[in-house]
């Protein structure tokens, strides 16, 4: 079976420094956790898989759609959470995406029509994460999704990951907390100085 996404001997250079070096990974259904110290290249690796950064060397293969939820919410200020998510779903050609239900599930139903610069950072994070439900892409890349969240929020993320795994989606999670998730991880990647090893 084809991996959902893979990088082969990938090198990413930023500001003339190799941030990801000769990395080969294959991402399949289930949970993949990527850990490593600050500056190890975790975010860059995720962005490379998402196709947001060109590879200086190596190749990238993707066999389906990708949902990338980055370290920052990636929502446009001046628009509400509902408008933001509706835009993205419409862009992907999905008219049936139930944005309202997703936002309510993630606890921001009450503020979903407020411009996002006027809701809290935690609420913005929840709105961004609601995309896990509105965009059923086979690959889900999550970069530090627990940031800014309270305990309920963290629970919602854990549930969402478990649900995604049950739905046979490939979830790649970058985090440096929540070691308890390693138990359920199908793959554990450790990044150090741009290189990846399997734990």
């Amino acid at each position, binding site marked *: 079976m084809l991996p959902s996404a893979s990088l082969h001997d990938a090198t990413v250079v930023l*500001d*003339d420094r190799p941030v990801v070096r000769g990395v080969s990974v294959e991402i399949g259904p289930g949970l993949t956790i990527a850990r490593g110290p600050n500056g190890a290249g975790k975010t860059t690796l995720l962005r490379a898989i998402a196709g947001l950064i060109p590879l*200086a*060397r190596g190749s990238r293969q993707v066999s389906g759609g990708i949902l990338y939820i980055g370290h920052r919410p990636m929502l446009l200020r001046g628009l509400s959470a509902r408008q933001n998510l509706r835009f993205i779903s419409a862009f992907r050609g999905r008219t049936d995406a139930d944005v309202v239900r997703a936002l309510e599930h993630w606890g921001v139903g009450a503020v979903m029509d407020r411009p996002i610069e006027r809701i809290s950072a935690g609420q913005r994070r929840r709105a961004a994460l609601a995309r896990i439900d509105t965009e059923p892409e086979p690959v889900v890349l999550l970069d530090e999704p627990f940031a800014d969240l309270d305990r309920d929020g963290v629970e919602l993320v854990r549930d969402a990951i478990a649900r995604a795994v049950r739905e046979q989606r490939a979830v790649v999670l970058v985090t440096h907390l929540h070691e308890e998730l390693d138990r359920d991880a199908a793959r554990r990647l450790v990044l150090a100085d741009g290189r990846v090893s399997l734990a």
Partner: protein
Amino acid sequence: MIETTASPLPALRLRPWLGIVATALAMLVSWMGLLWAPTDAVQGDVYRVIYVHVPAAWLAYLAFAVVFLASIGWLWTRRPWFDALAVSSAEIGVLFTGLAIVAGSIWAKPTWGVWWTWDPRLVTTAIMFGMYVGYLLLRGLSTDFERRATRAAVLGIIAVVDVPIVHLSVLYMNSVHQLPTVLRVGGDPSLDSQMGMTLGFSVIAFTFVYFALLAERMEIERRRQQRLLDVRA
């Protein structure tokens, strides 16, 4: 990006003989332009500036065309050699463009009484100068090799596309307003044969100077690129 500074063309031992030929031609043309070519009946000796102005202007456009081709080359092949070619040509180009404008002004003042006039080629050259400077500025502000090369390449392409449009616009403006034409340079049928030859040699000499400078500058760039690739490896 392809991790080599190598050129896609067969290697040619251009340095130093190209520089030697260019220097020799420059000396020859200096003599021709300053002494050998006759004094103009109408303009006196000041006309001799065209032996600098015309070739410099020709080279400004040539250098720009090379930037265009090199930019396409980089975007297509991601070969650092093309980026080296682009920046080298741009730097030499800005030099020659500035020279062309200054020489043109020096000629225009005693001849027509004005430093500047609304002539399509002058305006286009001035705007080209602005674009060159912007190109180099953009490169100067970029930090990463590949991003810098790509940004510069895109700018190089869109800037060059603009040059004929600018030229046409000013041409149309002049025709609409029926402004008196145009600095006639080299198109004058009554140009003395010695003057014509000097002008021709001038263009050839300047072209050699361009390629000599290009070769030198590209070698400098190649070394910089090599150092960079070594660090990244």
